[in-house]
């Protein structure tokens, strides 16, 4: 990047907010994804939409790539600047612009930390359900770009169900507004939904209008413990089949229980093969009734023990501990690689068995936990990046896991996005025509491939492996 461009960028944001020293480049060369790193040429911190627009105009004119990012917690390599260029950090654009208590909407800038936003909203007696496990540090903008899920996805849906409108800056610097405070709006293609989960490849999100809902009146949290992981997985399908939709329905296998307890010191049952963490919320009578019914189902599926959290604090501790599961698994081995293969909810038990079979076949250690209630599992390999041979085995195992998920009617990613990591597998899920349409959309938004290049679309798709059955 030549000094003229740097000069222009400094002119827009001021000297303090464009950096190209080694320290800034190194600290924006990675995100939450293991084993990926690539240095950008500069890092920029805009203050408002006008600055973002001006920056994009400069970059567009000089054909310089841009990666926009929040806190870099994503797990698909979505914010690693593989083609260099400029990393745009949205932290300074962190205002809650408005909370409209008549329309029940909030308008925010993308850099606000999700948890801070949720606490603010809850302080006003309102509820914003999307709750990615990284919410203590992830930003709303990042959540929208990746369409983050979380522990409440089963009953309440994910980020895409709560974004009503967006303001964003296109690759050439033009400002686009989509949607608004409207609950109904069919004027043309739904560009809002298209931008959610577009992983920074179509536009830079600069403002979002979010839907809020009234909070549930009551909440109850329980643990069901199993000596057999298949029983736990079967319980998940059985609860849904019995027409109960819990707010949260999470599964953790034994190694995950151990590391989570080591971190959170909750006294979890270390002798169990798996536990289910179940939460129901809503009207008090309904919560009581559902929890009683769920307990019955757990017993039918041979739960060894059932316990109900006695205080809200205890319940919160359990949920917080579960949120740390992925990171805590790093206690086992130096490198932790997590995937988020997702299947229809009725296939959870089958998928759990498949994962165990595949782990054994490739001789890798895979721990399983995840949002079982919405079919979103996180098979997590604990390995050592320095052992190349083992890493290859892990990659082969994940390839089999994606294959199995698709075979069971599922998908290659439920909430983490495609980024760099899943790009070779995207075609497995969306097919040739799917890729063609998506590439045409990318072309329409970003003809010079400046926005987050190298993500979502791989140079070539992985050849589909035929699994031998039997």
């Amino acid at each position, binding site marked *: 990047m030549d000094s003229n461009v740097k000069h222009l960028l400094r002119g827009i944001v001021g000297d303090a907010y464009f950096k190209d*020293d*080694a*320290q*800034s*480049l*190194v*600290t*924006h*060369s*990675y*995100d*939450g994804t*293991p084993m990926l790193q690539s*240095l950008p040429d500069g890092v920029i911190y805009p203050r408002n939409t006008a600055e973002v627009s001006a920056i994009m105009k400069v970059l567009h004119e000089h054909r310089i790539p841009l990666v926009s990012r929040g*806190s*870099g*917690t994503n797990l698909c390599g979505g914010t690693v600047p593989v083609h260099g260029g400029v990393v745009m*950090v949205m*932290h*300074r654009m962190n205002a809650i612009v408005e909370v409209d208590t008549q329309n029940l909407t909030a308008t925010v800038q993308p850099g606000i*930390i999700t*948890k801070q936003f949720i606490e603010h909203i809850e302080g006003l007696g309102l509820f914003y359900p999307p709750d990615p496990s*990284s919410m*203590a*540090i*992830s930003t709303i903008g990042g959540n929208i770009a990746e369409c983050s899920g979380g522990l409440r996805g089963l009953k309440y849906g994910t980020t895409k169900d709560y974004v009503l409108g967006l303001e964003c800056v296109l690759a050439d610097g033009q400002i686009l507004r989509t949607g608004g405070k409207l609950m109904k709006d069919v004027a043309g293609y739904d560009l809002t939904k298209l931008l959610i989960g577009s992983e920074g490849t179509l536009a830079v999100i600069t403002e979002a209008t979010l839907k809020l809902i009234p909070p549930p009146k009551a909440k109850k949290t329980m643990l069901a413990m199993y000596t057999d992981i298949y029983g736990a997985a079967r319980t998940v399908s059985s609860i849904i089949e019995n027409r109960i939709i819990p707010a949260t329905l999470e599964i953790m296998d034994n190694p995950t229980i151990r*590391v*989570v307890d*080591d*971190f959170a010191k909750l006294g979890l049952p270390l002798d169990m093969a798996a536990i289910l963490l179940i939460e129901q919320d809503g009207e008090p009578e309904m919560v009581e009734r559902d929890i009683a019914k769920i307990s019955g189902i757990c017993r039918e599926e041979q739960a060894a023990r059932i316990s109900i959290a006695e205080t809200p604090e205890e319940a919160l501790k359990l949920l917080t501990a579960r949120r*740390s*599961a*992925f*990171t*805590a698994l*790093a*206690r086992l081995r130096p490198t*932790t690689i997590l995937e988020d293969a997702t299947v229809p909810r009725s296939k959870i038990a089958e998928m759990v068995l498949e994962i165990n079979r595949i782990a054994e076949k490739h001789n890798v250690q895979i721990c399983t936990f995840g949002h079982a209630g919405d079919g979103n599992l996180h098979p997590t390999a604990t390995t050592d990046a320095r052992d190349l041979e083992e890493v290859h085995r892990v990659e082969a195992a994940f390839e089999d896991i994606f294959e199995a998920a698709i075979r069971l009617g599922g998908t290659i990613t439920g909430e983490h996005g495609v980024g760099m990591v899943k790009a070779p597998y995207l075609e497995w899920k969306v097919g040739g025509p799917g890729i063609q349409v998506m590439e045409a959309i990318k072309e329409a938004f970003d003809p010079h491939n400046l926005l987050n290049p190298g993500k979502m679309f791989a140079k070539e798709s992985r050849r589909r492996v035929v699994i031998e059955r039997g």
Partner: protein
Amino acid sequence: MRCGFCLPACPTFKETGVEAESPRGRISLMKAAVDGLMEPNVMFEEQMNHCLGCRACEPACPADVKYGQLIEQAREAVELHTTQHRWWVKGVRKAVFKQLFPHQHRMRLLGAAMNVYKKSGVQTLIRKTNAVGMFSSQLASMERILPDASGKGIVEIMGTRVAAKGEKHGTVGMFRGCLMDVMFTETNRKTVELLSEAGFDVVIPEAQNCCGALHAHSGEKEQAKELAKHNIRAFQEAGVDFIVSNAGGCGAILVEYDHLLHEEPEWHDQAIWFAKRVKDISTILAEKGRPLQYAALPQDQGTARVTYQDSCHLRNVMKGGQAPRQLLQQAAGGAYVEMKDAGSCCGSAGIYNMTQPEMSNQILEHKMENVNAAGVRYVVTSNPGCHLQMKLGIEKHGCSGQMEALHIADFLYDRLVR
């Protein structure tokens, strides 16, 4: 693992929002320097020194990354290779780390000199002429909150043994510290009295020395190790059940002597013997010995409220954040209020408030917002650095009349019913 869960726990990240100012960022810089991806240049040194070392990132880390060990290694490497320190900085560091802290009698001389300074009228003169302010405004502010230092340490006042009152519950060794001993001699005396009241025979080995925390945190690891060995010997000879510290900063390195000496197998057993006996004064009073009775707090116009500012090292390294709260609730009853963000660093961080005054003051300002919002009469602390820093904050906000910073041993001792 680079999940970023440490970011919200980090005070410098909270202040700046810049990735390089976070534990994840600093570790990535260390790794980049090791991998040869970047030069460990002056900016790298500055970033490593910008870390407060509060270690709030460690309990926040589900992956159990030992950040404290990483930053100490990085600072040691910086110290060995730095070209940044000018000759006089090197001189001052040598004087403080090698010639002053490790020598208790020199520390006491310093205490005596400070005492003379305060009482002889020199202080008044210096303040009137603003002689210190000409050098640095930070020094001038610090000068205003100098405690009543003493040329006599705790041993000179109480001797090396104080017997338990009533039934005996055990023998404890008192770690008197170097700064604590000359700048807060009264706090040390009250700590010993509290222990004796709780039923402990208190031994204060004369041979003990500085804990080495400042050395280890500043990259002078070899010196820290020598001090550790010296202390282990002194307390082993004293034959104690527990070793009690009343300074979170000292306590944190004392409980990690086993790690400090992990490369020296011949010290392995002794270091573990020592480390597992170390307890903070609050922890030992809350968990062992005879429970003490405290008089109710006088309710002067409803302002006699008490809050607690955590010592980062007591909370994050010694895992002793609960005991002080438990004791304060016993001693102050309903007058105890938890302030917002009590667990986040006050910006004192050893000598950080001298070496990084800008960031330190910024953090202190935010801390004072929370202190003021709590509306309290007493801010109780567990470490001399935090104690002075809170005094500084109170002085800067012009609240000296209405608000007081106190060490927990002073607060508890003054309410003791004997």
